[in-house]
């Protein structure tokens, strides 16, 4: 799976929603993710993609849409 598919599948698991048609949706504004959700997101990215995202580098505004998350993950590969 490529980054997009994996991220969308993680997000779908966390939020219960298929976000493939809503790539610029703000996940926090809509209440789809909260603090615990963002932690789970980082942990899933780590376990499924082997990319370690230091939690201390997490700035919410850089992770608030599916597109931003994908870009962020790609930049860390």
């Amino acid at each position: 799976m490529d980054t997009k598919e994996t991220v969308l599948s993680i997000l779908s698991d966390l939020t219960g929603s298929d976000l493939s048609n809503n790539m610029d949706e703000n996940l926090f504004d809509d209440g789809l993710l909260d603090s615990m959700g963002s932690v789970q997101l980082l942990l899933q990215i780590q376990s499924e993609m082997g990319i370690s995202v230091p939690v201390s580098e997490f700035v919410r505004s850089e992770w608030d849409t599916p597109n931003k998350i994908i870009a962020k993950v790609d930049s860390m590969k």
Partner: protein
Amino acid sequence: MITNMITTIDDYGQSDPDRIAYNYLGQTHTYGELKCQSDALAAHLDQMKLPSGAPIIVFGGQTFEMIATFLGVVKSGHAYIPVDTHSAKDRVPIIAEVASPALVIAVEALPTEVPDVSVMQADELTEVFSQSVQYEMTHAVSGDETYYIIFTSGTTGKPKGVQISHSNLVSYVNWMLSDDFKLPDQPRTLSQAPYAFDLSVMDWGPTMAKGGTLVALPKAVTDNFKELFEDLPQMNLNVWVSTPSFIEICLLAPEFDAEHLPDLAVFLFCGEELTNGTAATLRAKFPQARIYNTYGPTETTVAVTGVEITADILRDYARLPIGYVKEDMTIDVVDEDLNRVPAGEKGELLISGPSMSKGYLNNPDKTAKAFIDWNGKRVYRSGDLGYQLENGLFMYDGRTDFQIKMHGYRIELEEVDHYLNRVPYVKQAVTVPHYNKNHMVDKMIAWVVPAENVHFDSELDMTKAIKSELTKGDMMPYMIPQQFVYKQSLPITPNGKVDVKSIIAEVNN
């Protein structure tokens, strides 16, 4: 030991006015300021000739002004009802409807109007705080009079206000000051839990009784982990109070350890189950610190059992004990007919003693159901299941009803359903908990049968529309399910009820 919460705090303001009471991201406030401002507010409230005995709603966030307002309110003889800024928009009017408050003090601007109640706005409060008055306390809250009222969720959508008296509070705080918890003499304590959540009493209560400093960590910081981990080392905390959920976030950062936070000597947890794994990770990172697990319903003032999680406890208990009962309290374990079960067997925990609330504000029905006379004493029916081991330690084992704890918040699933079923797009809905591998609820999943003739382009749009309906009203954000699953129909038991158990089994499969 303290005998009076208010005079204890005031005495520091007189004897040592420059002592730091509050630190908000580096901005400090002294006990002297706390005394001056709370005196000025108390004098002002006295002049307003408010109906005596009526509580005052205080709305705001993690700030010094909130603490000063609470103190001013109780000095003038009123109980306060804390409401957090991150609550549902209608939280204040909904609580006002139940509580008939004398006044709402908007430490921060209210998001919505409150019908028929006078409101003291933030600029007026600032003006009052700036006055210098000589205030003589003559009618402060004392004894069995209510000190604070914390609103929890209720099954009908109407929240319940748990009334905690000055005596309840003093009894609780003295336990925290006892040898059961080895708090430092000069606590610098994390104040992260919202003041509307009674876990916050575990930080401000003992800390202010000892003349220590509360170090605020507002939600805006905790939401951005980068900022959180930049701020934490600068806070020089020696006492940590939070839910296990919050420490789990912190434990993810490698720099969250004794090397970077060398002063941290005591960790206090309450509000949800502390797992062995979390406690073990924490111990490995802070080998010298003392870690305490505690348990208690809001109705019995914050916590009534506690135990230090030592290496022995970690080794001997895969599921951690909730602790030994507070010395002046009793916990009886009973079956469904309220008969005591044999020692060691599981049952509902009945809690009794000096930190038990007098009941729910203006709600005699719910009070009579939860606070009952049993074997010659008044006890609180906790709805929590547990058992006591031979060595005296209590173990927690779930709920008797559909109440869950998620991230420290107490949620009645029936209440969630009540809100969901009011949404016009919903024909029928049932919310069930999803458990993680530690048997803790990590999300709520709603099974929804959509109303007929409702059409959305996708399930996501439907979910968004439902969430938007839910956030419009008075539903607390933490009560909104994380996942929505759409179904043609829900499974039904032979008795014709929705088969909640089968749904729980399926989502946790």
